[in-house]
């Protein structure tokens, strides 16, 4: 009940915002903030009250929805989803505050869409029915399309439709796989018995049952591919990544934050929740280390890391640099998952959360600079450190966290992922560390070009970061430091879930 409340309060907020008069912009913003703060409070409560000692799902609601197809409204949380729910709920109010001044037209529609987006994301992380999961997954598409297309930069129309088409392409393949799973969910030893189901926990059990159609390894490989492409577009995994730089560059600051912070995590969360837990034999086919296919998932992770990092190195647009660095950092998640051992998966999940926090910071910081200078050309700045010391300090913190400086959160996730991957894919893991070196290179080089050196005379009067902007960055900054020195704060949440997942993976 509490969980459902959290999911649908933003939707309620959307209705409330739509009913407000168009002129009262301040009121619209305040109401939106209120309706994003309530889920945050609930998420914090869930995070604290969640029973860490068990892997079972908690706060479960399970009611029938569409009887004809045995679809249920089934939501619940485990350690993985509660972590990402917290991240989502945290970025909600931060993005509202970040949008406070720099959305010039149609603030009412913007906030309404933002709230709809939040409901979609929260619902996605809590859904335990495959059909519901898909509906929430797709529910984020529409608001995102409009948020980029209406409030974005000069090439927003192109970026919006590209984002939409790519994601839809991925999700239709996922839909086929999903229907295939549903149709096979009651076939045991070639005979249909009982009702079909979309229930994720049930399906996971069935897929591990000897003789069940879902446990057939060929079947698992095919549906694995279907789901994988759907999620790979979202992550994004090379070669499905080309929508991301466009979408990021064109999207307004707060939407970039959501895109990098949450939407990319939806892809990797799906990989863990569906691909790994439900199709362990499919996963095995792509990660058993034998031949090309056995190394393919790790190879994709490696390509993401190296390709993303080198692309980032070549950028002169600050936001595009951060966008490509996202691709690189998501590669560590894929690599960690491909390792499918304790440290690999723990690292991957931690990296999901950390990247959500750090990339949100980076995009917010880019937004702060853009709002003042109205461009993002890295070479067009210089010496800002003297003009904006606080801003420079926070940016340095975010850069260091992102490039993986020990003591900050980025390091722990990446180190654990690499540690896990090394056990299985030594060669690829060693090569992947190039990504870390390049990552340090482009961040330090950017730091140098923007903040050090002689001050560009054009920006002598550039105002320092203001209180509202600091307010959005401080919670994230604290998290990067806390998780850097005390990662168990997050790891404890999903330790049992990971153990449980590894048991499933080892059972085949």
């Amino acid at each position, binding site marked *: 009940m509490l969980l459902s409340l959290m999911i649908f309060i933003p939707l309620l907020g959307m209705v409330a915002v739509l009913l407000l008069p168009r002129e009262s912009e301040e009121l619209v913003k305040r109401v939106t903030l209120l309706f994003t703060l309530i889920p945050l409070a609930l998420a914090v409560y869930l995070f604290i009250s969640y029973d860490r000692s068990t892997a079972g799902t908690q706060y479960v609601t399970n009611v029938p929805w569409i009887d004809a197809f045995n679809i249920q409204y089934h939501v619940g949380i485990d350690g993985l989803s509660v972590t990402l729910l917290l991240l989502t709920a945290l970025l909600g109010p931060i993005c509202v505050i970040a949008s406070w001044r720099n959305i010039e037209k149609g603030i009412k529609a913007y906030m309404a869409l933002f709230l709809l987006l939040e409901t979609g994301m929260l619902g996605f992380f809590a859904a335990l029915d495959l059909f519901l999961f898909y509906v929430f997954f797709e*529910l984020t598409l*529409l608001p995102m399309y409009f948020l980029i297309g209406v409030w974005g930069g000069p090439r927003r129309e192109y970026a919006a439709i590209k984002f939409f088409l790519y994601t839809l*392409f991925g999700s239709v393949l996922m839909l086929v796989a999903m229907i295939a799973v549903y149709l096979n969910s009651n076939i045991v030893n070639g005979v249909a018995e009982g009702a079909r189901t979309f229930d994720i926990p049930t399906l996971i059990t069935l897929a591990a049952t000897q003789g069940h159609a879902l446990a057939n390894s060929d079947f698992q490989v095919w549906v694995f591919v279907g789901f994988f492409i759907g999620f790979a577009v979202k992550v994004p995994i090379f070669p499905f990544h080309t929508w991301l730089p466009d979408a990021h560059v064109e999207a307004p600051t707060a939407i970039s934050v959501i895109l990098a912070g949450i939407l990319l995590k939806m892809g990797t969360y799906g990989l863990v929740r569906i691909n790994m837990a439900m199709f362990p034999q499919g996963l095995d086919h792509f990660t058993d280390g034998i031949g090309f296919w056995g190394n393919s998932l790790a190879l994709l992770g490696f390509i993401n890391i190296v390709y993303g990092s080198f692309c980032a190195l070549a950028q002169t647009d600050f936001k595009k640099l951060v966008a490509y660095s996202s691709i690189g950092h998501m590669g560590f998640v894929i690599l960690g998952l491909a390792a499918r051992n304790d440290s690999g998966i723990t690292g991957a999940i931690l990296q999901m959360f950390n990247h959500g926090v750090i990339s949100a910071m980076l995009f917010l910081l880019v937004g702060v600079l853009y709002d003042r200078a109205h461009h993002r050309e890295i070479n067009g700045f210089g010496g800002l450190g003297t003009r904006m010391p606080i801003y420079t300090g926070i940016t340095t913190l975010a850069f260091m966290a992102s490039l993986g400086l020990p003591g900050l959160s980025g390091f722990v996730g990446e180190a654990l992922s690499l540690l896990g991957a090394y056990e299985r894919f030594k060669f690829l893991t060693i090569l992947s560390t190039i990504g870390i070196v390049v990552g340090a290179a482009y961040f330090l080089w950017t730091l140098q070009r923007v903040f050090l050196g002689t001050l560009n005379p054009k920006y002598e009067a550039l105002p320092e970061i203001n209180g509202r902007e600091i307010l959005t960055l401080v919670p994230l900054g604290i998290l990067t430091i806390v998780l850097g020195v005390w990662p168990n704060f997050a790891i404890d949440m999903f330790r049992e879930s990971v153990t449980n997942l590894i048991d499933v993976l080892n059972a085949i």
Partner: protein
Amino acid sequence: MKNIDSLLYFTPEILLVIFAVAVILLDLVVKNRESSAVAHLSLVGCICTFAAVLFIHFSFGDEGPISLFLGMIRLDTFSSFFKILLLLATAATILFSLRSEELDARLKGEYYALLLAITLGMFLMASSTNLLMIFISLETVSLTSYILAGFLTHSPRSSEAAFKYITYGAVASGTMLFGLSFLFGMTGTGDLAQIAGRLTELLAAGDIAPLAVLIAITFVLAGVGYKIASVPFHMWSPDVYEGAPIPITAFLSVASKSAGFALFIRFFYTGFGSTGLMESVNWPLMLAIVSALTMTVGNLAALPQQNVKRLLAYSSIAHGGYLLMGGVLLTSEGIGAILFYLVVYLFMNLGAFYVVVLVANEVGSEMIDGYRGLASHAPLVAGAMMIFLFSLTGIPPFAGFFGKWILFTAVLEQGYYWLALVGLLNSVVSLYYYARIVKAMFFEEAGEETDSVSFSTGTFALLSVFVIPTIFIGFLNIFYTFSNISVSVMPMQ
């Protein structure tokens, strides 16, 4: 059942005839040309017929299917379902016509009388069980639609549309009649159920070649395919849809297609659903190919369109293709999926056409450019159009998604994975052209004139009649069961 006894069950059709005549008579009496009394009378006609359909269904529906007029037509849940669907489409068309400014005020009487007449024809299409009756009902609908398509007497495009429609229609009807005569010649009967029995016997005994049956079916498919605008009999529809008055385009794309599918299902399911025929003639594969081609051609042709009416015409061809997927193997799941999709399609497509009517009235343009900046001067209308278009694409949470999902489930259940994949990739393609309209409405600024357009409360009320079901149908259990009921009463004799 004998003819006289049948009349009681025929009340809805009789009511339609009475109101069609009454509309013509009223038109003679009413002096004021601007009066909308005629339209209102035909609306009352729809409501009375609606009540009669419901009354007869609930009074006699439990007794199972009733065969009327010596086996010419049949009353069952399936036909009642379609009658309700068709009446909704007709009522919506009448309301659109009332609000549309392109129709000639002097020709109102004929216009509304013809609308009721065409509804009668479609009623018969949905309930015919005899080859002769099938052909007559199809021709009633076709001839009436030729006139309606050419109703904009001052517009050469409208006349061109009507002429093209007739030319293609004549060829299709002729071909179909030829096919029907084959069937009659082979079996010696016009009754669909008996034809099925006879064909099975003859094929089993080896007295006729399976090829002969395939040819007959193909010819009949030409007539049906022409009504549902499936490839390769779709050529008429873009021109006709573009030239015809917008309410008629809406009507043809929804009602005509629905009636066509009713006929298609009854003809193939009752006449050829028996397993013996499925094995000897591989027409499921033929239908699958037709379906894949129809949606692909429709979607690809829609991509470059600039005229929204024409774009929606191609999109409706594509939707015919999606619907055909459900009919490939004629399983009850497949037919249930078609029925569900038709309900959804009724609301979302009529809704989209209603917005086209509104924009044509206000902006005077049917081109995508005319939709620029609609979101800023008419946000509710633009929002509604956005919902219809994304529902047509099949994006959750709108009803179109649930419709497509059921269709794809039915197809995958039969193992036609390639067909489902073609269908799904087509949905992705369709997003591109639907999104072009959305883009014009939301992302682009209007030209010089940016006056806020105010629409009446009635407009919004009518709009919400389409918007609310488009959002909520998928979430309600009752619609899933409704489709199943109407299939369960289709006996395979």
